[in-house]
């Protein structure tokens, strides 16, 4: 179970995580993109943090909507609409709730991923954030079905996201800026898959 306070803590720690990983994400994006993914994520979550600090949303849905709108408004690039849509759909899934059970968390991620897929039209193995988010959802659903506890569910999601992120290394990019590289995109880890893994890893760290 995760309270609204803990969910908020997740978002707040994400700001620190993206600030700390700014250069790492820039470097990954330099290799196969335009060297701004770390800047984008850092700017987005810094703004989220600032906007959140000014509000006291009544429920998790309202809180995630603020996150979504701020990301859409301040990130730009590919990551802005994608993570923006992720949190917008997640917020709808959490409408009116002030705490989330394990099944709610999984439903939240499921709605978020569906938004990413609809917005970006990427498929598995296109070398995008989908390659981290999608295995994470599969793992979480499996764990939920197995009757694993909350902590295990999130942990398994993060582990699958990490594996999915690493699996992007040998992939040939088919979506996003990296796709312009064709064969030359092979051998590099996708920056968006990496920021998505950090999303889940931070959930484990904060909620676990």
């Amino acid at each position, binding site marked *: 179970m995760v309270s609204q306070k803990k969910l908020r803590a997740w978002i707040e720690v994400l700001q620190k995580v993206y600030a700390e990983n700014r250069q790492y994400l*820039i470097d990954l994006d*330099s290799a196969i993109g*335009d060297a*701004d993914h770390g800047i984008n994520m850092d700017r987005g979550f810094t703004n989220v943090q600032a906007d959140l600090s000014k509000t006291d949303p009544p429920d998790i849905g309202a809180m995630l909507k603020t996150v979504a709108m701020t990301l859409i408004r301040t990130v*730009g*690039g*590919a990551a802005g*609409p994608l993570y923006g849509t992720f949190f917008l759909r997640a917020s709808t899934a959490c409408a009116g709730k002030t705490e989330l059970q394990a099944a709610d968390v999984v439903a939240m991620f499921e709605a978020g991923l569906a938004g990413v897929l609809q917005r970006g039209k990427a498929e598995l193995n296109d070398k995008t954030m989908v390659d981290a988010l999608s295995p994470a959802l599969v793992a979480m659903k499996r764990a939920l079905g197995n009757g694993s506890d909350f902590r295990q569910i999130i942990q398994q999601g993060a582990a699958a996201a990490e594996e999915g992120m690493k699996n992007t290394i040998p992939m040939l990019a088919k979506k996003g*800026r990296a*796709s312009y590289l064709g064969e030359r995109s092979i051998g590099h880890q996708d920056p968006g898959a990496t920021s998505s893994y950090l999303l889940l890893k931070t959930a484990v760290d904060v909620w676990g």
Partner: protein
Amino acid sequence: MKKLINKPEDLVPESLAGMAAAHSDLINVNYNPNYIVRADAPIQGKVGIVSGGGSGHEPMHGGLVGMGMLDAACPGEVFTSPTPDQMEAATKAVNGGAGALHIVKNYTGDVMNFEMAAELCLAEGIDVEAVVINDDVAVKDSLYTAGRRGVGITVLAEKICGAAAEQKQDLKKVADICRQVNANGRSMGMALTSCAVPSAGKPTFEIGADEMEIGIGIHGEPGRERMPLKTAREIVGIMSAAIISDLPFQSGDSVIVMVNGMGGTPLIELYLVFHELNEVCKGKGIKIVRQLIGNYITSLEMAGCSITLLKTNDELLKLWDAPVHTPALRWGV
């Protein structure tokens, strides 16, 4: 890499302030959300031409706002697509009841942000058509990828669509013209040096002292091939062959040409490149009827150039020649 800036995060708004102060006769600048509009916007009954993209490509797009060209431009952070709220606000600001054309360069981020903006505008009852420009022959096109990048043709499309809108042609027609320009235009770029995103603080890519990158993107995205530096004649040979064979351009075709500097290449070299391109076109019976030579769609301080060819006809040529008055492009007034 060294820059004439204060803080990286202030570059875009401070540069916009400079534009606002310099061109108050032509444009107004709005901050938060950031956009540039024609001083006389909105114009009743005229389709609003809106474009935008990451900053760092100046004068595109902000320098192309004005009579006969863009009604509004949305500047993002450096090399990062602007956001839907910018585009929505800009579209509203130029809406004179005849709807708006969004000219979008084909980058995932730009396309998705403009898509979200169009959804917002439609929800408010503003007619929006979006045309995605994808003229870069350096990138292999495919239904299953992000497809070709939008580069030099964007500038030509903005000029031509701006002229059509100025004549009060309707949204469908202006969008059709935009698609026609995109369908008949091809570009390719190359780089001698890297650019550096100010907030990243170091060059986007490493390149050897005797190397060049053929097919570079305007954000310093790697291109088709890294190869040893060649003469301008050989470089123009490679680029023009890729462009000409792609459409293909044929003997007897009339073309508008742009030889564009990436930001760090001196004009003396761009004219030499144009000379070489002119020789190639003469040899192939392709007639250059108009040309732009200079920095129009840049990549910060990157050294290099791009070549754009647009197969033209009487209608497009008339629109090209129509008066334009923007900070960066001006004729007929």
